[in-house]
């Protein structure tokens, strides 16, 4: 917006207002456009967050005595550290798995004909079109003792008795990988399809092998998409309450489950608030670190 207006106003003395005043008015106009969203954002996001912060500074579950006891209690218990650590680790494992599966898939996508690309894209987006609950229960069918995976492995004679996949972290990571895959692939594909196809040919003409081209040209240039995908998958898998509890079961405890227990089972809202805030802060810390690395790797695109 400011760009178009700047084009009409080549800093000449064409108007009556000094340029800084015009600019200020312009900013105001931009703000007016953004106002409805800002208000909704404040009402639906900022206010509850502040409420959460406020709630965490009470000592008892009736929310009557202000104090730091909830914080002290939460961070005094080594078990909670383990839960935070496990949650972040689950996110990292899922991110790794989606990268390992998703990146080659994105490369394959780039080489397909437009028609096959549409088919693949539909398959990729499919998980997003289904309800989380449906997806998750489908995975129970797949991973269960009598499930598809075990039946196949037994039939092939690779195992003699069914593997335990449900209620293990492995099973959870496998299913989260599928469930979160669109979040990895969509940004990756959108960045990759904007790459100049001549770059690959230019690299080959200069004598580079396919692997060299992949690691020196394609991977560095698709970094913004990769980082965006990692951020989305990380944020989404660390907070995937339904999948975590239904597939992981109650023996695998992650922060979302802990929050649910404290708020809706034990009704200790201050403690639930502390757990929620630690989830938000720890996830945001990892995301900030990732996006810092991402921005460094895409220096060639801006600034």
């Amino acid at each position, binding site marked *: 917006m400011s760009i178009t207006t700047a084009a009409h106003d080549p800093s000449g003395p064409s108007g009556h207002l000094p340029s800084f005043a015009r600019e200020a008015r312009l900013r105001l106009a931009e703000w007016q456009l953004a106002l409805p969203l800002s208000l909704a954002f404040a009402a639906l996001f900022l206010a509850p967050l502040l409420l959460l912060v406020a709630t965490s500074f009470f000592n008892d579950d009736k929310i009557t005595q202000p104090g730091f006891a909830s914080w002290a209690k939460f961070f005094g218990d080594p078990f909670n550290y383990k839960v935070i650590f496990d949650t972040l680790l689950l996110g990292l494992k899922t991110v790794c798995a989606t990268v390992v599966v998703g990146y080659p898939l994105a490369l394959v996508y780039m080489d397909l004909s437009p028609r096959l690309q549409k088919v693949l894209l539909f398959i990729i987006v499919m998980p997003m079109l289904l309800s989380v609950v449906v997806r998750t229960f489908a995975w129970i069918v797949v991973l269960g003792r009598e499930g598809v995976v075990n039946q196949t492995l037994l039939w092939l004679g690779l195992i003699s008795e069914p593997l335990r996949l449900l209620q293990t972290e492995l099973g959870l990571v496998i299913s989260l990988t599928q469930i979160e895959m669109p979040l990895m692939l969509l940004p990756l594909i959108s960045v990759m399809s904007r790459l100049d196809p001549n770059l690959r040919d230019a690299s080959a003409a200069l*004598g580079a*092998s396919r692997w060299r081209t992949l690691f020196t040209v394609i991977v560095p240039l698709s970094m913004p998409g990769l980082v965006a995908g990692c951020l989305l998958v990380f944020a989404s898998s660390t907070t995937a309450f339904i999948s975590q509890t239904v597939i992981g079961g109650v023996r695998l405890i992650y922060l979302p489950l802990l929050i649910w227990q404290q708020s809706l089972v034990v009704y200790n809202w201050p403690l639930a608030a502390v757990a929620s805030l630690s989830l938000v802060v720890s996830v945001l810390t990892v995301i900030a670190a990732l996006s810092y690395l991402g921005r460094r790797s895409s*220096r060639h695109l801006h600034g």
Partner: protein
Amino acid sequence: MQALAPASPQVAPAGRTLDVDNLTVRYGSAVAVDGVSLAIEPGEVVALLGPSGCGKTTLLRVIAGFVRQAGGRVLVDGTGIDHLPANQRNVGIVFQNYALFPHMTVTENVAYGLRARGQRGAAVDQRVERMLDMVQLGAFRERLPRQLSGGQQQRVALARALAVEPSILLLDEPFAALDRNLRLDMQIEVKRLQRQLGLTTILVTHDQDEAMSVADRIAVMNKGTVEQFDTPVAIYDRPKTLFVNGFIGTTNLLPGKVMAVVGDTATVALDAGATVRLPAQGIAAGSSVILSVRPEQLVLSPVATADSWPIEPGLSLPLGSQLVHEARAAGGTALKIVEPRRRSASETQRRFCALTPDARPSLFPRSTHPATE
């Protein structure tokens, strides 16, 4: 690639022959290149000239190894290279959009091919230095491509392609994005480098003036085939087909009929209303022909003669040192006449048009629907 690349960076590589032999390329059922043959001499610059979509880029992509042909062969120094993947052909290519690696500096871009060949250390630095000096970009080594102007990017692309001492250089409309002055500079630059290195070069272009000035020979392409492969002068003066004739330079097309052929001289009655005598081969008396005359091969005169025809004078536009007249002959045929700008005589007086004494117009048989003309 090692086999083709001379090791010593001091000696300019001797040019190689490039033979394209009956090459055919299909995309699905569409034929993009249809039986093209070109025999290119060592150190020669050949321009591929033709309208959009005629298969110029496709031909380059086959030579570089990015696209597989449906039939035919590509030979360098008499040896087939069709079985080699692109990264082992040692063919340098400059893309129309340069295709510089956007995340690498100028230095890294130029060093890319050397590194890919496993070269390391001071040798690479020296070579990059030399290439950047050659294209006069020494001061820009640490810039990223997006911090360079179009012409500078083009020179980086050239330096990158030449750094690995390719045996063949392919240029795909490398000057299309440049403004006129810069384009002229770069044409001279490329020609100089190519001479210096003795590089066999193919230059794709839309621009006939560029083809005329840079190339030793021009291949005029149309719909996947080569219509004529000859020197610029021959193509301009003796076009083999009506297509080449129309594509190169401006021309006037005058329909007529061959009245008599005596020895090598044909007498042609033009529909515009004049009888002219021309040297002609392989034309039978009685056949309908089209006479193609360059604008500078026509003159205007105030008096009627047997070999001039009446015209309706139109606009006259000065074009540099020349004057371009527009006119209409009988039957509405539009004519363009170019003459040096010296006369100031009133144009309206000169109502007759004739061939200059030294004019060598081309005759083409008129096969398409003479009734409608």
